[in-house]
């Protein structure tokens, strides 16, 4: 049998397959590059980077919960200058797309990062307005449609590469938020970021995380993520990158059927460093089994 075609096009960028890394779980690929061939990936989405270095949150930053992980890293990053110097040249060695995830506390922060990247050889920008782990900015931008519109349009005006806006699931109406981002010029949407959660150490009678609350990721959130992707896919025209608990090719196929053009793998990397490649393989196996010639035949094709 002929190998099925896995390539997808997201906002004009052609990816060899729909599988990318979820921001923040994969660094800039340097470490995981020892465990898998980065050339295989549709794209590497890098850890959120801000205009200046951030130290991130204090204290315990991770807690394990049933079928999931809580994290409160708080966007520790070396700042955009260091990132441009070290990480872009590293990733450019590989035949994969580079998507840079952008963090900020203020509108100006975001704009500075985007401007610093304007002449860099990267493929897309992913605007993170949904991090639950920083007090200012982050999620505050992502839960209010007006704010989403404002920050998206300001960033879009300055962006030289296609702009993905990453949405927070901690909202009453994801469709309203998605539409606001689309109306403001987003070229694609990615969802979901983590759900805000908490865990308590009952012996110490203290929250486990230093930051008290953190972002929930992993298989536990998959049903919520899938529902949101499904709802948003039916309401916007721009392509969607789906994520949240994808552990296998079968999970990824659920997201594609629900309407995602791309998928990202996050927490699964912690369980298996080669999770991304096994997801790619799993999608291919499914297509072969279903006698489909192209992954594009799945996207949004829910009966």
């Amino acid at each position, binding site marked *: 049998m002929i190998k099925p075609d896995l390539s997808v096009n997201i906002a004009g960028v052609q990816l060899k397959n729909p599988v990318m890394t979820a921001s*923040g*779980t*994969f*660094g800039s690929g*340097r*470490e*995981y590059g*020892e*465990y*898998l*061939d980065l050339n295989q990936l549709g794209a590497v989405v890098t*850890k959120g980077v801000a205009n200046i*270095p951030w*130290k*991130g949150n*204090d*204290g*315990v*930053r*991770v*807690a*394990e919960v*049933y*079928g*999931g*992980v809580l*994290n409160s*890293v708080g966007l*520790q990053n070396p700042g955009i200058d260091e990132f441009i110097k070290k990480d872009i040249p590293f990733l450019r060695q590989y035949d994969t797309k580079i998507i840079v995830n952008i963090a900020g506390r203020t509108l100006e922060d975001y704009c500075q990062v985007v401007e610093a990247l304007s002449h860099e050889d990267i493929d897309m920008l992913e605007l993170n307005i949904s991090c639950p782990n920083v007090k200012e900015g982050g999620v505050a931008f992502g839960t209010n449609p007006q704010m989403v519109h404002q920050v998206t349009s300001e960033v879009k005006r300055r962006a030289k590469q296609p702009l993905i806006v990453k949405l927070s699931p901690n909202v009453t109406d994801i469709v309203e938020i998605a539409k606001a981002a689309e109306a403001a010029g987003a070229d694609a949407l990615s969802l979901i970021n983590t759900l805000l959660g908490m865990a308590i150490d009952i012996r110490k009678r203290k929250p486990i995380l230093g930051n008290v609350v953190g972002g929930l990721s*992993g*298989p536990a959130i998959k049903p919520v993520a899938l529902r949101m992707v499904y709802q948003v896919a039916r309401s916007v025209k721009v392509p969607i990158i789906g994520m949240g608990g994808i552990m296998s090719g079968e999970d990824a196929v659920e997201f594609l059927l629900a309407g995602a053009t791309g998928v990202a793998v996050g*927490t699964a*990397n*912690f*369980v*298996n*460093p*080669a999770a991304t490649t096994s997801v790619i393989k799993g999608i291919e196996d499914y297509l072969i089994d279903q006698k489909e010639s192209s992954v594009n035949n799945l996207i949004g094709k829910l009966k």
Partner: protein
Amino acid sequence: MKSKTTGIVLENHEIAKGIYQMKLAVGDTAKEAKVGQFINLYLPRRDLLLPRPISISQISIGEGTFKLVYGVVGKGTKELSKMKEKEGIPFMGPLGNGFKVDEGVKNHILIGGGIGVPPLLQLASELKGNISVYLGFREEPFLVEEFKKYSNQVLIATEDGSYGAKGDVIKLLDENPPEGEMVYSCGPKPMLKAVADWSRAVDINAQLSMEERMACGIGACLVCTCKIKDEGLMKWQNKRVCKDGPVFLRDEVVWND
């Protein structure tokens, strides 16, 4: 390309109350291990996603085995303790930097607390020169006889005084001051902090093996950081225990509050 591999359990039994020793067949992976490194173990229970970091307590290149010694403190280590001979357990590693062994150092001081004791055993077996060992336990001590193979100064303290001196290792150190040029220490954070203060006071350099909760285990996710001094403007930065550590020099570590 590196990958997650499967170790085969050869032994897994309780060696002291709540403390288990597991011998794992790991084949050629044993050749890669350095003293003070750890492996990350993945559990069969599907609700538990994250790997458990456990130090390599003994390395046998000949046998192709690691010995691990772990305390049953929660769900994951409980699960580990139930594993039977011949069962396979997936792991990654060896991971981390390990202790730095300087040929110039002739007199070594090993200070371990509780489940921080095990990695010091491989160290004791590799070090050349004179070795003093100070071990603190909550109640029942373990690995003591093994340490005696490599050192004739193995001192023990237990919190309840049921074995050795009553109290903690710092008291033991104060009462039996060692001589040496390098301290190697592993244990709970408060103990490490105390060892840092003590060693600074007696002006002996120290390497400390830090502990943090982990996710990726290879340096990508930044959940396992600890504060490390930095020459630059920021004074300190968060470094990764899994990749830049677990062993740091005493004078690099910035202690929280």
